[in-house]
């Protein structure tokens, strides 16, 4: 009875315990460093989108925003408040909209005056060379910089006439539209948050 039931179980438990013990120790050592890395990475990406701000408050999740009665589309993930020497000068909105190959996650920096400070696409799996151009070459996202239009942007195939028109990336209209919708939602949210000042 002992030989073929308890012994195997015991050995397995011993192996598990020993290995997990070592792992837990390694984890306790690396945990702080990993958290630090993640925080630094996050700050960096926020900074790249909103260079003037010097610090960012803890993000508010979409659910919390909804409870504040703000206009939150299901593309919004969370919002960081951007501060410059203590004052809230603008917001960074984390948005994720459905692109060609799947979800495109991006950060949109918008100041109180509804000017778009910067956009970076944090993760996507669009086809390399086509949809991926939205993330790799800044040309596309720079079109959004500057004053956001009253209503929403519209995506055009030819050269844009005015501020509110965005030229789509050739052969990647779905991606271009997805990014634009994401930016529109971010602007709408910030507009409702900043009370349309």
């Amino acid at each position, binding site marked *: 009875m002992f030989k073929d039931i308890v012994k195997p179980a015991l050995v397995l438990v011993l192996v598990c315990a020993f290995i*997990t013990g070592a*792992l837990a120790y390694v*984890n306790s050592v690396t945990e702080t460093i990993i958290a630090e890395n993640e925080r630094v990475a996050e700050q960096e990406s926020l900074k790249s989108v909103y260079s003037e701000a010097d610090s960012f408050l803890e993000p508010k999740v979409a659910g919390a925003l909804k409870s504040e009665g703000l206009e939150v589309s299901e593309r919004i993930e969370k919002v960081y408040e951007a501060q410059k020497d203590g004052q809230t000068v603008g917001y960074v909105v984390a948005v994720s909209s*459905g692109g*060609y*190959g*799947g*979800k495109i996650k991006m950060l949109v920096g918008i100041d109180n005056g509804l000017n778009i400070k910067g956009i970076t696409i944090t993760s996507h799996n669009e086809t390399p060379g086509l949809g991926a151009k939205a993330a790799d070459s800044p040309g596309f996202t720079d079109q959004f910089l500057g004053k956001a239009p009253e209503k929403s942007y519209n995506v055009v195939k030819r050269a844009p006439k005015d501020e509110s028109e965005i030229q789509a990336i050739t052969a990647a209209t779905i991606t271009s539209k997805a990014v634009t919708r994401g930016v529109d939602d971010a602007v709408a949210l910030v507009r409702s948050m900043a009370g349309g000042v």
Partner: protein
Amino acid sequence: MKELFAILIGAMLVENFVLSKFLGICPFLGVSKKTSTALGMSGAVVFVLVLSQAVTWLTNEYLLKPNKLEYLQTIAFILVIAALVQFVETVLKKMIPSLYKALGVYLPLITTNCAVLGSALIFVERDYTFVESVVFGFAAGLGFTLALILFSGIRERLETADIPEAFKGMPITLIAASLVSITFVGFAGLIIS
């Protein structure tokens, strides 16, 4: 309901486990010599995938998440999968010996099958609910079956083709696999979300 359907089609065609996510290639190349063995293997993979998705989801939800042990995911999942496969093997050996003989050596091979652990890690990354992750596992299994049977048909034809010496065996199979996976790239735009 639409969400489940999207996952089902997505995992089967768009992110086909073998041909676009590169998971489960070892059995895919090793076993697809004959369609009969391919059928047996994919049957086992679907069976194990569904079971393992359910069990791993429960372990993750009630064991790992409450005490914040996310870093132990790999070890816990693989332990569950290995035990599950061995359990299935012993039960099959007793209950349905004919099926066990048909699967033969492929059953323990599933433990090291990247698709099973891969799909477990994906449902964590996308934090699917229980039903969604089981459907995802099932769809991934179907995708695996589709790719495997499609490919074993091709390989049977390859046997009679006149292939240069250096390309015999695995190289020509890999090139055939790349052509098949080009067709699956065509499904990329299918995501309806």
